[in-house]
């Protein structure tokens, strides 16, 4: 899936956008971006305006600076997460013929406060640091299992062998879904999630596919609760009302969308960095207690998600006129490389004074799974360093990427002396 060759057509600039604020960047297909994403991000940080409008992909704003994004992320009236307004979704659903299956929605990611809070609260409880810490041993065992399979081979394509199966298995275990159906879930993650196709019909089909494979387990756990997240979510209330099957499907979809593709690519970027930074590998092998800090610094250096927003009202932002309904991207990868916030932002420096990044965004939508993500990343780095000797990128198969709302690693070939 490398659609890098074709840029989307440029649309004309609206009159209220000044020429100085226009910068041509296709966040899905820019060739330099797809070839080596964070190198191009650094180039944008140095050469593009701090907030700009690009004519690609229908035309949209790009927020680049740390300050602009930090402010935008918490001003929900100015920058709404309701890409399709909830009122419009409700009207659409009301028009469907009776008997149509429930169309799952990734709540709370696509809904603004105050309703946002209702749907987020039950998940917060389930994903508390306490709950996640209890999973550590299982995650480590899974990581070791995957790594032991490749350790003797002296080489592997790390995404398929480790980075992709690990979060899927953790997800299934945590939710209490049957591990035997792993392949089905992996197929959905692989084929669909990184597909940039924005056609709402296809998106809907994907969402229905995700809920379809979870439905049996969800119904079963309602009757026979176990020690898993599905059972816990059945027991919580949303805004004082018991959880319904529709709510459960919404949660299933949001966790699937937010928790798999992300962790997998985070692992990809981090392990790629380690493969290129042999002194860091040595340092961490000798001092495994530094892995937690390294995980933070790598998250900052390779921030890889781009949450979308809709301008909520006509306004001035950072000296620019923005109109209600225009789209704006919180380009987090640039914020975390902003030299105003991080000196020598390009270097991975464990001694850096300020490592507080916004790879998980800020404000009300700040990643709810960040504890889990951190634990998964740390454990993978720890075990990769423990189970493999010094590893490098395979010079014959350089890594490949895809770009969009997630900067993803398609392939990551590593070699080592076995």
């Amino acid at each position, binding site marked *: 899936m490398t659609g890098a060759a074709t840029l989307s057509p440029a649309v004309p600039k609206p009159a209220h956008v000044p020429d100085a604020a226009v910068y041509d960047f296709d966040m899905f297909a820019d060739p330099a971006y797809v070839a080596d994403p964070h190198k191009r991000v650094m180039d944008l940080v140095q050469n593009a305006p701090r907030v700009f409008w690009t004519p690609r992909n229908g035309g949209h704003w790009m927020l680049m600076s740390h300050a602009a994004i930090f402010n935008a992320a918490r001003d929900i009236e100015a920058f709404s997460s309701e890409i399709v307004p909830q009122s419009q979704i409700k009207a659409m659903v009301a028009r469907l013929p009776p008997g149509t299956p429930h169309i799952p929605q990734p709540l709370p990611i696509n809904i603004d406060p105050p309703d946002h809070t209702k749907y987020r609260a039950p998940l*917060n409880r389930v994903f508390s640091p306490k709950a996640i810490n209890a999973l550590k041993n299982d995650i480590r065992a899974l990581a070791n299992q995957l790594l032991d399979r490749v350790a003797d081979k002296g080489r592997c394509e790390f995404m398929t062998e480790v980075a992709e199966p690990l979060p899927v298995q953790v997800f299934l275990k945590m939710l209490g879904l049957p591990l035997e159906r792993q392949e089905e879930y992996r197929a959905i993650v692989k084929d669909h999630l990184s597909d940039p196709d924005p056609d709402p019909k296809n998106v809907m089909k994907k969402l229905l596919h995700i809920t379809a494979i979870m439905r049996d387990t969800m119904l079963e756990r309602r009757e026979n609760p176990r020690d898993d997240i599905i059972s816990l979510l059945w027991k919580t209330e949303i805004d004082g009302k018991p959880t319904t099957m529709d709510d459960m499907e919404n949660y299933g979809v949001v966790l699937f969308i937010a928790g798999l593709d992300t962790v997998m690519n985070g692992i990809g970027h981090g392990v790629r960095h380690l493969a290129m930074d042999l002194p860091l590998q040595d340092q961490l092998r000798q001092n495994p207690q530094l892995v937690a800090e390294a995980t933070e610094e790598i998250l900052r250096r390779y921030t890889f998600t781009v949450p979308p927003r809709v301008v909520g009202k006509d306004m001035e932002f950072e000296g620019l006129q923005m109109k209600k309904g225009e789209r704006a991207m919180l380009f987090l990868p640039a914020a975390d490389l902003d030299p105003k916030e991080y000196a020598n932002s390009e270097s991975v420096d464990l001694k850096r004074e300020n490592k*507080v990044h916004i790879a998980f965004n800020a*404000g009300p939508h700040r990643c709810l799974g*960040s504890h889990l993500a951190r634990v998964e990343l740390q454990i993978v780095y720890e075990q990769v360093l423990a189970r493999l000797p010094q590893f490098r990128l395979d010079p014959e198969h350089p890594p490949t990427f895809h770009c969009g709302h997630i900067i993803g690693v398609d392939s990551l070939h590593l070699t080592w002396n076995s």
Partner: protein
Amino acid sequence: MKLRIDKAKCVGNARCAAVSEELFPLDEDGYIAVEQIDVPAGKEGLARRGARACPERIIIIEDEGQ
């Protein structure tokens, strides 16, 4: 030393508690549990690091103390 916490803005990512669980207690949902912290003597450095670790920048050093 005293810290003030703008509790309503906490998003529950426990970066403060990762620095020190004792200084920065969390509630059952993982949000910061208190609005004010009287830092015990000797823990000022930890308190400062915890405040800096908050990505929401809502832990404010109110009174540096000694």
